[in-house]
């Protein structure tokens, strides 16, 4: 118990923040994508610490299983894996970092001042059955909407990324 935080939490948060920083600073794009995966894994562990088992596993399944591979494929398809031909940081990088630091300071100040040290309530026994019931009863409309959205996104992404020729507009 290092100053009020559990050891596991400190380790996972260090892992997550280190992954995120590596994604920001590394030159080689594929290394950025792999450090992104480390961040996703760290976040999944944080979810598990918050007893959100279903969210943690679906995070691993969706993000590490699919999105990370998608990002890496996109990098390879846009020939990003070699030496970047243009400088990897934009000219106004200082302003960007300043804005980000400002946002973080604002959030941190809000968190520290407003929150009373709330007692940790008992770990809710969330079973997958309850989630299923909730999905089917209280959240059935959002479920259908997300289903439609996913299909639309699926078809949209394919059409957007389809090679030029089949679109038929003579260049």
């Amino acid at each position, binding site marked *: 118990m290092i100053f009020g935080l559990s050891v596991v939490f400190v380790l996972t948060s260090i892992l997550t923040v280190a992954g995120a920083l590596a994604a920001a600073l590394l030159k080689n794009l594929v290394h950025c994508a792999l450090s992104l995966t480390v961040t996703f894994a760290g976040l999944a562990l944080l979810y598990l610490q918050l007893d959100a088992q279903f969210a943690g596993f679906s995070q691993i399944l969706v993000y590490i299983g*699919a999105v990370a591979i998608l990002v890496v494929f996109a990098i390879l398809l846009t020939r990003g894996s070699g030496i970047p031909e243009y400088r990897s940081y934009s000219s106004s990088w200082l302003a960007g970092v300043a804005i980000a630091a400002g946002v973080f300071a604002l959030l941190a100040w809000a968190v520290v001042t407003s929150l009373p040290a709330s007692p940790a309530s008992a770990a809710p026994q969330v079973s997958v059955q309850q989630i299923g019931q909730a999905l089917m009863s209280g959240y059935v409309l959002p479920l259908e909407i997300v289903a439609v959205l996913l299909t639309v996104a699926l078809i949209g992404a394919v059409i957007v990324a389809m090679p030029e020729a089949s679109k038929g507009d003579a260049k």
Partner: protein
Amino acid sequence: MSQSSPFWTNFDQVFVLLRHWIESFFPLWLQPAVGTVLGVVAIVAAFPGIFALTTVLERKGLGRMQNRLGPNRVGPLGILQPVADGIKSLTKEDIVPLTADAAVHFLAPVVLVIAVFLGFAVLPIGRNMVLANLDAGLLFFFAIGASTELSVFMAGWSSRNKYSLLGAMRAVAQMISYEVPLLLSSVVAVMIAGSLSTVKIVEAQSGFTGIFPHWYVFTPWGFAGFALFVVAALAETNRSPFDLPEGESELVAGYFTEYSGFKFALFFLGEYLGMFSIAGFAITLFLGGWGAPLSILGFVPSWAWFFAKLFCAIAFFIWLRGTLPRLRQDQLMNFAWKFMLPMSLLNLLVAGAWRFLGEGWSRWVFGSAVLLLAYGLLGRVLMRHQHLGARSYRYAD
């Protein structure tokens, strides 16, 4: 020979009692930790042991299928062959190509083996012999299974070699397109069992009518789900007809071309352990996990049934490897998206109908009719351009 006689239950629970006995030596607050450590040690010892045995059985089995003896030089009947292979792979020089990306090159096999070992955590090997009885155990297994693709990609990309990159691309494309049918065909068992926890699924299949068990594989949707699950599992672990990524003939050794020595052995171990864990899950979902096949055989310990079924599954994988030629990439993709996906979606429909048609033979007829009809139609779609008539030459006479 009723199941409840103390001797048989003790024999069935021998490992659990062993664990409690060892735990009793430790202080109370340390006991759960010791329990899990013992479980992990058991898994890390048992499954690589089965891996060593399988390499010999595979080579001998394939030999026998091709009318030749398998390896019989090292030790009696070639049993010590894995020891020889192990020492060979440990002593072989571990060459890393100069232009390879050293960090990612080293991490790839490590990530693969860690992910595969994690997959064993939720596999119920025997009655209350599961390392982590998670409520969403099946989801955990598929989440971990999904991360093996990443390690395959890391291996292929980091070796900076065209063959391995091609192999990696093929492997990832294959694993992603077969993950969808794999998940959907397992959802069927979850729907009927009503829970994602692997232990509950096995318990849901543990009843007997007369002497026949209530395994899911004996229902129309269960058999279809089992068949789809096994075919998708074959593709997921790059084995037998789907071993396109490391197709020796065209792509040298696929994504682990640039690996040698111990790292190659790790990949080899990872692939085989992936095969065991996915076969274990096929057994858990459809073949009644550690349940006995006949009620009169109830006295045999539960873990013995699990490992017996696992060896039957391994024999089936080897049998397939000895028989089926490798698929082309387009056949592979067509089969996944045009046959497996519609069949597994239909299977969901049949399982739903099965649950709400209630007892009686009507659901049997409906289920099997729908599935057989779909199998015939979809099969004809795939077999349509198979009519390879007599070969006609343009210029030859």
